Structures are given as C-alpha cells and as structure tokens.
C-alpha cells in the first residue's frame, strides 16, 4: 500500500471517532494541529470527493437540524482499515526514529 497523503490521513483521523460535516472536519484538524495547518475548503472537498470515489468514506444519514445542506461523512470499513494501516506505518517510523535516537522518550 502506498502511504496516504497527509490530508487524506488527517480526514480519516477526523472521522475516526464520529461522523462530521465539512466544517466539523476542518475544525477537528485545526484543534488537533495548528490553526494554519488546516486545509483550504476547496482542497478538502476535492479530497472528500476522491476519497468517496476510492471507497474510503461515504455520506452518513445523520442530519444537522440547524442546516439541512450540511452533509455528514463517515468512514467505510475500508477507510477504517486504511487509517489503521497508515497509523501502524507511522508508528513503525516513529519506533525507527527512536531507535536511531532522533527522538527521545517523552519529548517531541
């Protein structure tokens, strides 16, 4: 499997614990990282569209009572597997970095 792009992984991560709409995904990414690390709206929707095409996520049937136009996205089984595989790949990279003393325990 080729590594996921950072944005794809960010979106998978954002949807891992609950279904979210577009704005919610951006806010989640912002909260997790620095505010200016969030993707532009257009870039995110391009990613959402392609990820739907690849079967990584799908529309949820959850409806926002405040705004019906907001559609919620949720991970598919395949999306969850990809997210997990990517996490493992990253984890192995971190382990490797530690063993080469790039990272020390607890820091960074």
């Amino acid at each position: 499997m080729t590594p996921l792009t950072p944005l794809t992984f960010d979106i998978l991560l954002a949807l891992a614990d609950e279904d979210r709409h577009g704005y919610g995904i951006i806010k989640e990414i912002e909260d997790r990282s620095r505010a200016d690390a969030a993707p532009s709206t257009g870039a995110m929707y391009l990613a959402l569209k392609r990820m739907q095409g690849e079967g990584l996520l799908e529309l949820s049937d959850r409806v926002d009572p405040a705004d019906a136009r907001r559609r919620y996205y949720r991970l598919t089984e395949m999306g969850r597997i990809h997210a997990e595989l990517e996490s493992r790949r990253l984890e192995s990279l971190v382990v490797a970095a530690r063993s080469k003393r790039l990272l020390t325990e607890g820091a960074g």
Partner: protein
Amino acid sequence: MIVRIVGWILALLPEAERSQIRDEALSVVRQRATEPRAGPRRAMFAGGEMWGALRLVAGAHIDRWNGTTTRGEARMIETTRQDVRFAWRTLRRNPGFALSAIGVLALGIGANAAIFTAANAFFFSPLPFEDSGRLVTVFETNPDFGWEDATAAPANLLDWREEVGAFADVSGYSEFTSQITTFQADGPVVVGGSMVLGNFFDVLGVAPVMGRGFTMDETWQGNGDVVVISHALWLDYFGADPDVVGKTIEFNGGPQEVVGVMPQGFHFPTADTQLWFTNRWDPAARTQVWFRRAHIVRAFARLEPEVSHETAQAQLEVVMDRLEEAYPGTNTRMGAGIMPMRDFLVRGVRTQILVLLGAVGLLLVLACANVANLMLVRANDRTREIALRRAIGAGRGRIVRQLLVESALIAGVGSVLGLVLGSAGVRLLTASQPLGIEGATALALDGRVLAFTAAIGLSAGLFFGIVPAIRLTSDDVDPTLRDGGRGNSGGRGGLRTVRALVATEIALALVLTLGAGLMIRTFAEMRSVDPGFSPEGLVAVQFTVPSTRYQNRDEVLAFYNEMIESLEARPGIVSAGTVGQLPLAGTSWSSQLKADTWGPDRVGYEVLHRRADADYFETVETPLLRGRLFDGRDGPEDPLVIVINEAAAEQYFPGEDPVGQRVAYDREPTPESNWYEIIGIVGNQHQESPKVEPRAEVFENRDQDWGRSSWVVVRGGGEVDGLVPQIREVLGEMDSMIPIARTRVLRDVWRTSMAREEFLLQLLSVFGAVALALASVGVYGVTAQAARRRTQEIGIRMALGAAKEDVVRMMIRQGAAVVAVGLVVGVALTMLTTTALASVLDPMLFGVRPTDPATLVTVVALLSGLAVLASYLPARRAAVVDPVSSLRAE
C-alpha cells in the same frame, strides 16, 4: 467578499458536481470567513481558499475527463497536465520573474476590472424596471432658452399622454428630492421625498411589495393625502410593521396615509428617496397659464410594443406643433424629444467612464508590453535550453505550446489577483464617489465583469506569450548551440523586439501622462476661478419652520429674525444670513423676465430665482455693485423689490441701468402679474460649478417672498469646527422641535462642485504614475540587457583607454534612441487623434485644450528625464566593470 469570489470559482465546477458540492463548500467557506483572524492571516486564508477552490474545480474536471475520455483525449489531457506542471515548476524556479510578471499584469487587469465594473453598472446592467428598453425620457427643447433636455410643463405632459399614440403612457417626477420632516417621540426626522405623478410606478412597471401604488386620480388634490414608502423607511420608521398599510405618517401639516411599500433597493429617482407622494395639483390648474409655463416635471414614457423611436418622435413633434399654435404665450418655439431612459440617466458620467475605460485599456496594453519584455529577457536566458530541447527532438509546436502554457499560467494567476485588486478598487471608487445610476443601479461584480476580466486576461496572455514564443523558436538550432553556450544574446533580432516594445511603452505612457497632466491643469484652473463668494469659514444649516407651531407669515419671519439676532450675539459668530439655496449646489426654478418699459418683442428668456436676505450677501462676502440691498423699507406689506446679479444686468440690460426698473416674471405680463422693482446689483455667484459661467439670477426678498424652508449661512471668526453645534444650540434654545435637514461646510460645497474633475484627476494620476513606472522599468531593462550583451565590447573599449563617462554616455545614447522613438510615436499618436481626443476629453476639461502645448512639453520633458535616469543606472554599472574580468568572462 472571499465567499463571493469562491462562489464564482465554484460556479465553474462540472454540472454534475455543482449542485452537490458548491452549496456545501460555500457554506463552509462562509462559516470559516466569520472566524476572527488577524490581518496577514486573513489575507493568507483568503488566498488559500481561492487557490483551494481553483484546485477543486480543476480536480473535478480532470476526474471527469479521466472517467469519460477516449485515449486520444486522454493523451492530450496528459500532455496539458505535463505542460502545466512543467510551467509551474519553471515559474517557481524563477520566482522573481514570475512575481513581477504576475504583479504587473494583476495591476493592469485590476484597473480594467474596476473601471469595467463601473461601466457595466452604467451602460449594460438593465434598469430595474419592467421591459426597460421601452422606457424613454421625454424632454422639451427651446432654442430661444438654449434648452436641450428640459423638464416638461405639466399641461404639455398631459397632452402627450392623450395625443401621442406611440406612448402607452406618460408619467413624470420631480428631479429634486424634498427634505420631508416628520416627528417621532424623540424629535424630528428628516427623510428624502420624491414628488411623482400618480401613474409613476405603473409606467415604470415596478409593483409595491405591500399595499398598492398610486392611482392617476391621486395626482390631483382632493383625492386623499397618500404616500408610498421605501423598504428602508418601512424598517426604520415603522419597525417593519406588517400592518403598515393604512397607517399614517405626519408631515406637511397633516396625516399622510401609507398605501404601499416598495421593494428593497428601489430608490428611483434619487438615491436618498425614502418616500413618494403625488403632485396633488389643484384640478383648476389645468386651465391656468402656469401649468403650461412651469417646467417642473421630468417626463418619461413607455412606448407601445414594437413602436420605433422615430415614430414616437414624429408623433410627438406633430403634437408640439399643434400646442405651439394653440398656446403661443407659453409654447412659442417649444419642441420635444425622446431618448432611451438609460442614455438620459447616464448622460452626466458617460464621458468620464469612456475616458477611464480608454485609460485603463492603454494601461493594460502597457502592462502586457512590460510582461512581454520580461519574458523576452528571460527567453534570451533560455535560448540554450530551448535549442537543446529542439535538438533532442521536441517539435516547434510543442515548445511554443509549452511557452504559451507558461504565459497562460501567468495570465491566469494575474487575472485572479487582478479581480481581487479590482474589487478592492471598486470599493475605493465607491467610497470616494457614488457610482451607478442614482437610485436605479449599484456597482456589482457580476458575470459580465468576470467574463470581461477572463477575456482580457486571456488575450493578455496570448499577446505577451506569442511574441517570445515565436522569437525563441525561429532561430536555427545549430548557431545557438555553437555560440559557445553564452546564451545571453538572443541575437540582434531579440533586442530589436525588446526595443520596439519599450518604444511602445513610452508612447503609451506619454498618452496616459498627458491625460493626467490635462486634468491637473483643469483642476488648477477650476480652483483659481473666483466662485463669487468666500467659502472659507462658512457653514450652512438647512432647516424648516414647521407649520404646526408657526402658523402664519409673521410668526415665521419673527422666527428668522430672532434666529439671526441670537446667532450674531454669539461670540464665535461674525455674521449670519438666510438663503433658499446654496451657491455651487445647483439651481432651483427659473422663469422668463420682462421689464415694464420693454416693447413686445423684447424678453429676458431665462433668469434663475433664489430667496435671500441682506445679511446673506454680507455673510458670504458677495459684493453689492450698485444700488442697495433689502432693508427696513422692504417689509412684507411694502412694494415688492428684488436684487439681481451682474450676469442678469449685463445680459438683459446691456448699456442701461437696471436699478429702478420694474420687472415681471412673464413673457407677456397679465393684470395678475406681480411687478418687482430692481433695487440693487450684486456680484455673480457660480450656481453650478466653477466650470459653468454664472447665469442670470434674481434674488427675492425673504421678507416678501417668504417660505418655511431655508439655509442659514454662518461665518465664524476662523475655524468652522464649532459652528454647527452653535447653530444647533441656538435653534434648540428657540425651539427643540426644529428639524435640521442638512449641514454643510461651504468649503466642502466648493470642493464637491469640482468632485467629478478631482475624481478623474486622481484616477488618471494614478494610472499615469503606474505608466511612468512601467515605462521606466522597460527602459531600465533594455539598457541593462544591451549592457550585458556588450560587456565584452565595453571591456575592450575600456582596455583601449575609453573613459567611464564615454561608456556611460554611449549606453545612455542607446537607451535615449529608443525613448525618442517612443516619444515621437506618442506625440504623433496624440496629434493624429486630436479630433477624437478633443470630442471625448473636452467636456471634462476646463481652461485648457486637449492639445495644450505647455502640458505636452512638460510631459515629454518628464518622460525624457525619467528615461535618462532609468538608463543611467545600468549604464553606470556596465562602466564600472573591470575590463580584465569582463574579457576573461568569455
């Protein structure tokens, strides 16, 4: 703003995705745009969102193609993608070049987008009326009075309504907005009101959103005091009351019934119209002389479907001929004409917009020439790369394409940036001057502006891309490669192209700077005109003495007198006087004039009327030239007296003394005519603008021709700052319920009367400065390039003993030749187009002709100076080169 731009970009999504993604993505952008962000962050965010939207659109299209394309198409798309990616990388490798090209282009495109937005609002956006192409303005003409598009007399208008078959209906409105005072619990409120005929809304074809419009019967007195209100007034005054229809609003000394509410944004005929009321003419007026003499209604008609303007005009003329015969006293030589309503409404700004469109057009060509130049210079650096690519088998077509994709990319980014600059420009424009047809259209960046920007961006890209592309690929491959890989010459041909471009830039800069120079002269001339009064230190406040508490003439006059006395008793106030209308702020009514000693053929065709008191002339420092001003001898019951201005004396009493003569305001006085004795002559005040000669004017005596609404003009000792509060205080002490309509600083009135010229001056100066900068950069570039090409030669010359000064002079001479060609072409261009130029520019100019030699010489000198400076810098650098190292560089 950002939401709107992203919205436009997303409108380019493929059909299938548009409905789905666009709304959703937009709502996210909207929400994100409301989050707080500091200045630079905001800009970064906006840029990121636009770029993201572009990527989304491009990505969606690519996905769609990938899904549906044939193999041939797929290959083409793949090649294009490669080209774009390659172009992007190339540009990123050389960010200095890319940024300057994009910046210059964005400037040019931004200026065009901004001015085109204004032009769009004036010339193309439909008037917000039903089937507005059938609406025509009907005006009266009279060669005796010099009338070309006069307002109509009500009786004539009513006859057109009945007799001109081509008109489905005729209506009209007053061009002056009345300041209407109404009272709320916490004090008086003043709103703008427009007086209209009963069929006004019907003929325009605009229906109220609530209630009804007027009926034609309501044009006449005795059919109910009814008003229609604007959407804004409904919100502000009635608190959006859903049951407002049938409620009343108090003004004109009585309750007025609200019968309808107009749609949001409808303010025709003036931007400050908040309320419409009908003329309420006395039905008896139909047969009175004044009804055919007073030209007070701006008439407009709706043509019957399929009827041509020529037919309507012909029928109108037949009716006017009949009226001339039937009513010689009022209709002698009175004609009428029609023109499309839009043309009529934009007639005042047409020239201005055309001049600006021309100016930004030139600026864009200049910007393109500049970018083409940059590309050529850069292309020369790439000669070797391209020769190499051709040698290993790249076809000429492919390379041209590659280069064009690069320029398209620059043009694309430049256009988007230009659009952003343009919308900022539009905001600046509207802040300094209201644009759009007053009360009817506003500025908007709509699809047409977008299409225009895209079109000019694309043509710009082609324009500056094709020249270097052709130049670069036309050389034979071998010699360039054999050239020892210097790759810096581009051959003599390349330099020739660059020179031609720079000469073009100089020529265009000359024309633009000349335009700015002429406006500077115009503005200076206008400022030096004596307006006929001293505006410094004067303020004016317009107020109304309400009939609810001051019932009759004596009470009103007592109020005026007490007010003037109280004002003048104030320590900071030198003097105060009242006048019906401020100078340099337009005119009100006019009439004919006849002295009792004149024969039947002699008549004064037009005098303006204003009401004033003696204190007014002293306060504004307009001199009394002969006779006397109003005084105690001219009370309300005494014989009627007037003061006239110098223009009236010269025009209608040449070689005689007007003082002591008696005049009436009729062509043929009747026993009912009022006779006025001329008691004095005062200096002229410019009524409309310093550009327009003062017109003949009569001042009525405030105590005799009294009225309730007036301006009080006050002169303070020095600064104007504290004066308005003092006037408010005095009025407040006398009566806290006195409504103040408007306050003005007379210096601002003076400035405002030149606002149009100042506006044009500012814009043209900016364009001229940009043009100068771009042209200087061009000259710098061409000299620098020549210097680089001749490093070796310079080295040899200096090794052989040439002095630095000789080298510098040689290089400057070379730059100067290019500049001289540009200047000659520019001057020739101006001379050749003199007639066209004059017809466009003349209406904007004052005191200077479009071909003013002094301005031309100044501009040429300025450009030459800048050009010498721009070529001196690189020339000097070339001359400090160490001869040995420059030779060794080979």
